[in-house]
Structures are given as structure tokens and as C-alpha cells.
């Protein structure tokens, strides 16, 4: 038994068992943001979603957006590149903190 059971994703809507009004607003916003063509294509949105899913380390989201990417016609190279973008930006977010380290060093007279 782990905390993350893939089957549990189907129960996401149970969040609306209480304060359904808020859940309805969320799911409406979610659908409009991720599943409709706009300035970005559905495939581009799916690839962004896949990258964010990895950055947020959410297994439910990774399952959902892997399928969403495939059903939007993305290929394995595009999907892998999206994960590399998430990985690289995540690494950059750590590394750029080195500037703060450099500031602290200077304040310490180093």
C-alpha cells in the first residue's frame, strides 16, 4: 500500500463532496486552461502540463498528462524534451541561488 494509488485519480471529483461551488469553479477553470485550443494548441498545453507535473512531482498529474500528450499527438521525443525543460529549470532554480551565496560571501568579506 502506497499513498499514491493510480485508481485514486478517478476520485478527484470527490473534492466537490463539500463546497461543491469551489470545486465546480476549479474544474471549469482547469478544463478551460488545459483542454481547449487557444493561443496555444492542446498539444502545447499538454506538454507544459507534463513538465509541470514532473516539477511538482505529482504522480497523478504525470499519469494524466502522459496520456493527454499521447492523445494530443505528441511523440516520445517531444515529451522527453518537456521533462528535460522541467529538469533544467529546476536545476537552474537551485543553481541561481548561488548568486545569493556569492552575496553572502561578499557580506562576509570573502
Amino acid at each position: 500500500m502506497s499513498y499514491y494509488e493510480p485508481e485514486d485519480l478517478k476520485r478527484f471529483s470527490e473534492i466537490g463532496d463539500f463546497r461543491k461551488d469551489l470545486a465546480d469553479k476549479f474544474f471549469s477553470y482547469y478544463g478551460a486552461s488545459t483542454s481547449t485550443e487557444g493561443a496555444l494548441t492542446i498539444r502545447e498545453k499538454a506538454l507544459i502540463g507534463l513538465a509541470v507535473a514532473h516539477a511538482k512531482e505529482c504522480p497523478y498529474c504525470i499519469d494524466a498528462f502522459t496520456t493527454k500528450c499521447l492523445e494530443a499527438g505528441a511523440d516520445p521525443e517531444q515529451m522527453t524534451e518537456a521533462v528535460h525543460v522541467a529538469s533544467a529549470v529546476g536545476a537552474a532554480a537551485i543553481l541561481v541561488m548561488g548568486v545569493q551565496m556569492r552575496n553572502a560571501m561578499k557580506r562576509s568579506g570573502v
Partner: protein
Amino acid sequence: MVKDLRRDSPTGDNSAEFDFTATLGQHGLEINPVSVSTLQMNITRHCNQACTHCHVDGSPTRTERMEQQVIERCLEILNGDTRIKILDITGGAPELHPEFRGLVEGAVKSGKKVMARHNLTVMFEDKTDIGEKNEGLVEFFARNHVEVIASLPHYQEFFTDRQRGAGVFKKSIAALQLLNGAGYGHDGSGLVLNLVYNPAGFFLPASQASLEADFRRELLNRHGVVFNHLFALTNMPINRFKGQLERSGTYRDYMHKLKDAFNPAAAQNVMCRSQMSVDCDGRVYDCDFNQVLGLQSNLSGPVTVYNFNYDEFLERRIVFGAHCFGCTAGSGSSCGGATT
């Protein structure tokens, strides 16, 4: 009387959970025949490939082959009715049937448009399934203006070989280049080359228009290949593909995905409303999927090519099953691709 040649192991689903007729009822839909514009013949289960998704379970080990008397009767039906416009020949790999070329020529002589469901790699098989010479296929297609419906699941080698076997992609591209060389796929040549995409896994196809644009760009840039149109098909949850779904524990998920994506507009355009499908032994079905599931068309009794009557055939009730959700999901799916 038909001679029983069936060796299929039908894998239908009669569960109440996926009751297609009930879903039609919930949407107030009654789907009845409107015409028989296409006569589809499945002339062999034999194939030089054994693809993971194949609803026919075609493979090199299958031996069922349409008999000559059934072919002759189908040609009689085609010749005798101008309302049937198209002969659609499928398999297996139909080109490996020793009478394939005679069938094509007979239908062309009757003024019919002929479509061949072509797996591309069969181009390099130089013998039929009984060892007869089988060369010059491209020239034969071109001479008879056969519309070639070629299977190519993806413009990437990874997806194509995963579904159709190692090495299939490279041979498929070589075959497409030969077809292009004969004029196929070029605007104005009159030689039509359409591609068939289907997902290489347990997911639904992307929009046909977006896939066609991707294929057109990538095949031209990477391999110099051109084509006319791309048909996006949904994988049918029957036979070999159903076995895959069951082994991976995803059959019900896939069925729910299809059912949840039910599209009433697609339901109104299902191909079974305007075609007949003939099996190797002369039995008649509403579609190729019903054929491999053994769901024969029925009037006062089972319909065969020997008792077929065009006007009476339109009076039948189409036989539906759980697999029909595959034709009505999303943009719809048919032998001609999306239906909406």
C-alpha cells in the same frame, strides 16, 4: 450454402456495463442502414506481419482464404448494381491472395472504384501465400487506379516498429517512396495514396487534422514522402488488442474511455450504415469488426453473398456490440478515418 472457414476466436463483450444499444437509446438515437455504397471484402487472414493492434488477428500462420466462388459471386453483385460504388479489399494482406489481382481487374471492369488496404511491407513479398509470383505490385495498382490505403502508425520509427514489428518502418518508407515514384500521392496524378494512423498504445487518437499536418511535414522533411490524406483510426477493443488490454489490466479503463467519449454525431455517421462486409466464406456482416466477432447480418436468416438482395439488406437491423463504442468515440472512427 457457405463452407465454414472461420478460425477466429471471437472476443465480444456482452456486459451491461458497455451496452451500446442502451447508450444509443439514452441519446434518442436509432441507427439504421441507409445504403450499400461500399462492398468490403476480407479475402484472407494471412499476413506477412502480426501487428499488436490487429482486430483480425492476421499473421503469417493464418491460412483462411476466400474461395473463388465467393469472389465470383461478389463480382456478380458489384456488376449487377450501380448503387454499389466502391470495392474495399482488406485482409490480412489481401495482395497475398492468389486471386487478388483478378478481383481488382474484375471490379475495375465493372466500373467500380477499388480501394486496397495495404500494409506497405507486402510490397517486398515476391510470392503469394501459395508461392505464386507476386511482383510489380506498384505498377499493377497504378494501371488499375487502385486507391491505396496504407498503414503507417507513425512518422517515427519507434512507434511504428513497436506496433508492427522490428524493421517495418524502414521497409514502409521504402514502399511509400516506390508508390510516390509511380505518381501515387502527388496532386493531379489521379493516383490516391492515403495513410492510416492508429495509436501505438492504449490511448485515443489525436485530431485527424493535426496528425495529418504532422505526418505531411515530417514525412516530407525526413524522407521526401508525400500522400493525399491521413485517416486516424481508434484501436478496437477486440481480439488481439483486447488481449493486450486485459493482460495489462486496462481493458475496463479503455472501454470507459471510449464510452465516456461517446459522440452522438459520430454515431450517426458510422460506416455500417452504408456498407456490407464479406468474409472468406461468403457470410455477410455489417462491418469488418462484426465479421471477426462472428456477428452476422440477419434478416429472416443469416445473410450471405448467395442470398444477398440490396433492397432487402437495407431492411435489416444493424448488429451492435460493446466494440461499437470504438467507432463513436471523440471524432468517430471508420475505415475512412474520423466521421465528424
